[in-house]
């Protein structure tokens, strides 16, 4: 039932503003659908990161699997060192593409998940919010016509302007606070909304019960139920 773990070679590691783009040789690996994720681990293993890290694919080409990384600690740092990468996935449930107009909302590294979704929803409006201009550089990877805001402006501000009268689906990924605000706005306007959420994960395949998130009002495993959830399930 579980996909096999693969060791994929690195094609390139490129700075992308404050983030880092990791491009792997796909080598026939199953890429799943946007919103699913992979457990990634540098090989040989670094001394300071024992577990793999959950990362969503930024996109999948015939010969490439790409990830956009916010290098925060030892696990992501080791992934950018240029060695091979152990890849387990695709895991979890991705976005369910609904008919009708689409609004894609990304906050910070949450934008990482959107380039691939944009390819499947080329007509979508894209709203991106970042902490700094250096973080906003990656907007170019997502969509040339994305609306990009930088703090102190929040991505929910343009969203609030677009939602009245919008009949379609909001697809959002970003920090919890942003997702909460997006879900509240969508609910207020009666708009369908899917959230790609994050949690600390040890395994990614239901084994550890580490990735608890309130889903349907109870602590449940995000890697099993999500990471993409109907907004109504995530905010009880």
């Amino acid at each position: 039932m579980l996909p096999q773990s693969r060791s994929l070679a690195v094609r390139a590691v490129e700075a992308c503003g404050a983030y880092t783009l990791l491009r792997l040789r796909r080598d026939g690996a199953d890429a799943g659908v946007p919103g699913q994720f992979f457990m990634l681990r540098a090989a040989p293993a670094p001394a300071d990161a024992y577990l793999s890290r959950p990362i969503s694919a930024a996109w999948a080409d015939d010969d490439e699997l790409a990830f956009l990384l916010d290098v925060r600690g030892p696990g992501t740092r080791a992934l950018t060192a240029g060695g091979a990468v152990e890849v387990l996935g695709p895991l979890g449930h991705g976005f369910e593409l609904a008919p009708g107009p689409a609004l894609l909302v990304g906050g910070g590294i949450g934008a990482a998940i959107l380039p691939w979704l944009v390819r499947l929803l080329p007509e979508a409006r894209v709203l991106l919010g970042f902490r700094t201009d250096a973080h906003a550089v990656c907007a170019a990877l997502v969509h040339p016509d994305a609306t990009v805001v930088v703090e102190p402006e929040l991505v929910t501000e343009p969203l609030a302007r677009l939602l009245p009268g919008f009949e379609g689906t909001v697809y959002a990924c970003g920090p919890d606070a942003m997702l909460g605000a997006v879900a509240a706005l969508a609910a207020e306007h009666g708009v369908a909304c899917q959230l790609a959420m994050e949690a600390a994960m040890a395994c990614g395949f239901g084994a550890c019960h580490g990735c608890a998130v309130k889903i349907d009002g109870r602590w449940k495993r995000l890697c099993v139920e999500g990471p993409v959830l109907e907004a109504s399930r995530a905010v009880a």
Partner: protein
Amino acid sequence: MPSLETSFCGLRLPTPFVNGSGTLDALVSGTLGVSAFVTKTVTLNPREGNPPPRIAETPAGMVNSIGLANPGLDRFLEDDLPRLAELGVPIVASVGGWSPGEYATAVARIGAHPAVVAIELNVSCPNVESGCISIGTDPRETRALVERCRRETDVPVLAKLSPSVTEIEAIATAAAEGGADGLVLINTLRGIAIDRATLRPLLGGGGGGLSGPAVKPVALHAVFHAYAATGLPIVGMGGVAGGSDASEFLAAGATLVGIGTALFRDPAVVARAALELAEELERRGASGPEDLVAAAHPPTSTSSRA
């Protein structure tokens, strides 16, 4: 290549490798090659588990504070166990509780299911405030609990012990006196993580349990001394991540070998460890894993084993 077939408490298993309780959900991922599937600890009532964060990485391991998240006895029996029974591997059910009566009820009801080949009494979970863990730190309570549960079922009853005690021999002996058919050790070590940003305890449950390669020397110590004290068949675990770890546990006195945390980072670890063990047995000219059991003990101290 030598066969890895192994006898344990009257069961014949194709390999000595099982999972650690609470470190594999076979209904989600499949059995990943274990020869018997050990369930997450089941308690009388359903438990959501502790608030997040529940895990933190540590050097060569992790601390967790899951808090025995499980569907509770009724739903386990109705929903999970029938589906587990279809997976084609024997089921070892882990049970926990807050009183001997709770354990006894679970043992009786679960032990009656034909797919269940053994029951593991978790008296060593560090992530709940009372119950389990406090029983397993007291020889008298451990003996009494095992005695009571032993009467409730015909399948072998195993006691899963904590390494975070002054004298593992005393607890192991108490479990043996209570009639345990085998021992499982180690559960996680009591440990905590501090949030480097806030400097407050990181895990939602406050305390936690340490597992992974980091604990291997402590686990080998516990297995070695529990075996010397009781001669009971042992499921040894704590940091196993490959075939040579497995032979170390066998040598220390284990008959089966459990893998937990290493599964999280590499779901293929069981298959790899089995291959490595078979290769090692071949190199040594051993006829099976049982040739290695208790090899680290002086010949005279080898007690009779079931």
